[in-house]
């Protein structure tokens, strides 16, 4: 696979989580992703990586790189297919460099009525989390 090729719906994507705050740890045996991990603010796109064909170590390696570049520690990742993202009206667009990077775009913009737009973003983030799988680093 050439990562910069157009995204197909079966492709898995990873959103790397760099703060424990984005995981609900109330049930320590079954931690849950929080919707906040999939909200794009302050940008209008959500940064993800295309992980098709990578094993666990390969995905984790990218996550550690992302975390290191941002001065954080990798906590985990949310995995979701591109098709799941597309099914709720968003798009996944390749955006390299870095290799395998893509953006989830098509979010409601924060423009006229920011709080109303934010509520729409939160709902979309909830819908993504319902389709995503948490992997702890």
């Amino acid at each position, binding site marked *: 696979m050439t990562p910069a090729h157009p995204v197909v719906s079966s492709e898995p994507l990873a959103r790397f989580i760099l703060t424990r705050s984005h995981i609900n740890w109330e049930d320590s045996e079954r931690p849950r992703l929080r919707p906040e991990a999939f909200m794009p603010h302050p940008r209008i796109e959500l940064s993800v990586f295309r992980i098709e064909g990578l094993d666990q170590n390969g995905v984790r390696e990218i996550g550690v790189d*992302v975390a290191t570049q941002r001065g954080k520690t990798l906590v985990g990742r949310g995995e979701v297919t591109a098709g799941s993202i597309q099914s709720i009206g968003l798009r996944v667009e390749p955006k390299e460099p870095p290799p395998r990077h893509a953006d989830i775009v098509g979010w409601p913009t924060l423009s006229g009525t920011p709080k109303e737009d934010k509520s729409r973003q939160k*709902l979309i983030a909830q819908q993504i989390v319902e389709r995503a799988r948490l992997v702890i680093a």
Partner: protein
Amino acid sequence: MTSCTDFYPTSFAGFSASRAQGADAAAVQSLFSEVQDNFLASQSLGGPARKTLDSLVDTFLDCFGADWDGYDALAVGPQTYHNARRFLEALTSAWPQPSVAADPDGEISLEWYRGPRMRFSVSFGPDATVSYAGMFGTSTVHGTETFIDEVPDGIIQHLRRLYRMPA
């Protein structure tokens, strides 16, 4: 200020007194004093409410600095913390306690989660307008309400729906 992303205090024993002076230092000292008072007061509450207030304090301290999520999130400000706390205090004990998190725009989010596709959250910023979003099976809702002193009826109606309580 550094991010507290990986620091999860449940008490304030780890904080040493600062020698900083000036208006900003005084404001921060006052804020932390108030947070500490709130933390100590929460010790006298019942288990679930106490845990939620503890979690609110932890979230505020975790996200008090900018970029707490590694993706340029905005800092959670003192007024945002106050508003979320007032909401929790106004919420009657008839409702299950929500979980607390920070949004990347610096707001604090309270979420009630019943199971897959059964969730409802309210976000608080520094002003009186709160935004909410929820999933009730195949139905979804989102919008805004105004929170002054009482939990808005619109929020109560959505909680009733989530927990299938009669109106």
